């Protein structure tokens, strides 16, 4: 049996018309004066103008002044017979500014360039993803640096202490003290490695975290209850004002950790001169962003001195109180894993206020 005949190939005109009409890329055909002689539906849709207000108009009318010169130059190069390609970030017509990968291709007829086709591809998503990767790489670099430093510190101490053990008299009190310090250093080393595990586990699940609608008031009450004894012991009060129906799409364990860390900090860094007062308030819901405030009247810290370091890993601001500088770093990581943002305002001897904003 003869093979089935393949269906006939559509005519060039039909094929290219289909491409022109249906591609998501912008296609323009221009003359030497940058007048648009033809524009495809993708371009008309972007600038939100009917065909009649685009064709026979200058392309400059649709571009911000700062890229006019660039476009003129590239058009000239194309009319000189070169296919040119360039990136730009600009608005077109009334559209929002976007990243464009632009190609201008000369159309030849009888040995002369008679017009230039432009194809512009929207590469905004790709550019944003790239920027995100760069930022993440910088974060990782910073993270590695901090980890290596914080591993080396207890390790160097342990090395020195072992050196000492070799020369201290085995029965002397110094020998025993050195041994105790050695144990503490190794314990510290182990803690740093455990911290890394905790942090990596959160980062791993950043996008996988089981998000559910978690009632905010319920989680906060749970945290307050678990810290109640400590609060009572120091004569403090915690006031919670959160609408009962306000919930947040989040991982419940992360949300718990956020409030546990913030309230533990308020307790740890309370002012000795006055009883601790903490208020936890939240607004939002029904299509609006959720705004959570945790404010205390504690010892506060010098915000100018602390700068952006407050949320950094292993950064500490209260030399006379215990702490590893992990809590706020974890809190920030948790908030960001929900797509939210955390900020802080603090005044020495007045108190500290944390604000968490989670977009709807």
């Amino acid at each position, binding site marked *: 049996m003869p093979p089935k005949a393949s269906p006939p190939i559509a005519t060039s005109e039909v094929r290219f018309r289909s491409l022109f009409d249906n591609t998501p890329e912008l296609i323009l055909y221009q003359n030497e004066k940058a007048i648009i002689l033809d524009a495809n539906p993708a371009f008309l849709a972007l600038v939100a103008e009917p065909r009649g207000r685009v064709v026979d108009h200058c392309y400059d009318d649709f571009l911000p002044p700062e890229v006019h010169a660039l476009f003129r130059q590239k058009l000239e190069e194309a009319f000189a017979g070169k296919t040119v390609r360039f990136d730009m970030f600009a608005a077109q017509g009334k559209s929002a500014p976007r990243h464009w990968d632009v190609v201008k291709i000369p159309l030849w007829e009888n040995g002369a360039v008679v017009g230039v086709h432009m194809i512009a591809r929207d590469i905004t998503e790709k550019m944003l993803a790239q920027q995100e990767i760069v930022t993440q790489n910088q974060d990782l670099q910073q993270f590695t640096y901090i980890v290596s430093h914080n591993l080396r*510190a207890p390790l160097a*101490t342990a090395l*020195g202490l072992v050196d000492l053990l070799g*020369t201290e008299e085995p029965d002397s009190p110094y020998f025993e003290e050195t041994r105790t*310090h050695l144990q503490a250093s190794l314990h510290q080393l182990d803690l740093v490695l455990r911290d890394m595990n905790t942090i990596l586990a959160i980062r791993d699940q950043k996008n996988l975290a089981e998000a559910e609608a978690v009632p905010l008031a319920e989680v906060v009450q749970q945290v307050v209850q678990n810290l109640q004894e400590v609060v009572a012991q120091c004569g403090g009060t915690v006031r919670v004002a959160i609408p009962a129906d306000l919930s947040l799409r989040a991982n419940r364990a992360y949300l718990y950790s956020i409030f546990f860390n913030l309230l533990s900090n308020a307790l740890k860094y309370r002012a000795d001169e006055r009883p601790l007062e903490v208020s936890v308030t939240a607004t939002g819901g029904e299509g609006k962003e959720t705004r959570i405030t945790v404010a205390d009247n504690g010892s506060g810290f010098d915000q100018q001195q602390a700068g952006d370091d407050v949320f950094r890993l292993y*950064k500490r*601001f209260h030399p006379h109180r215990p702490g590893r500088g992990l809590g706020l770093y974890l809190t920030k990581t948790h908030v960001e894993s929900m797509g939210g943002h955390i900020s802080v305002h603090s005044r020495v001897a007045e108190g500290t206020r944390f604000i968490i904003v989670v977009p709807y």
Partner: protein
Amino acid sequence: MDTLIIDDNPTGIFLTTRLLRRDGQPADVITSFVSPVEAVAFFRQQGPTDALPHVVLLDLNMPLLSGWDVLDALQPLEAHLLGRCVFYVLTSSLAPADQARARQYPLVAGVLHKPLDGMTIQAIQARVLETLPS
């Protein structure tokens, strides 16, 4: 060689003190500050005739004031301290950038990596004998 240790970690102070005791002279006076803020205050309160330590071993990574912040805070006293007191940065960090940064401070004679060992202590002693009037 009288030495002042500025280190926020008490274990670090214990270790450095014991190493200096082991490899130094019996008459050496060794003092320390866990708080960099108090260390700066100490230098500011020093009168012109008060006894300064020969050597200051300064940790870098400390809460509130880093070792660099301490050096910045001491800048107004530089003329007074130069030739009377030799500073060494003593850090567990191995970052090469520390060396370059330390060179910007005339007070700082060098960067030492923790832990101190006998040879380094002897080298510091030799340098102190050389540069400081006894």
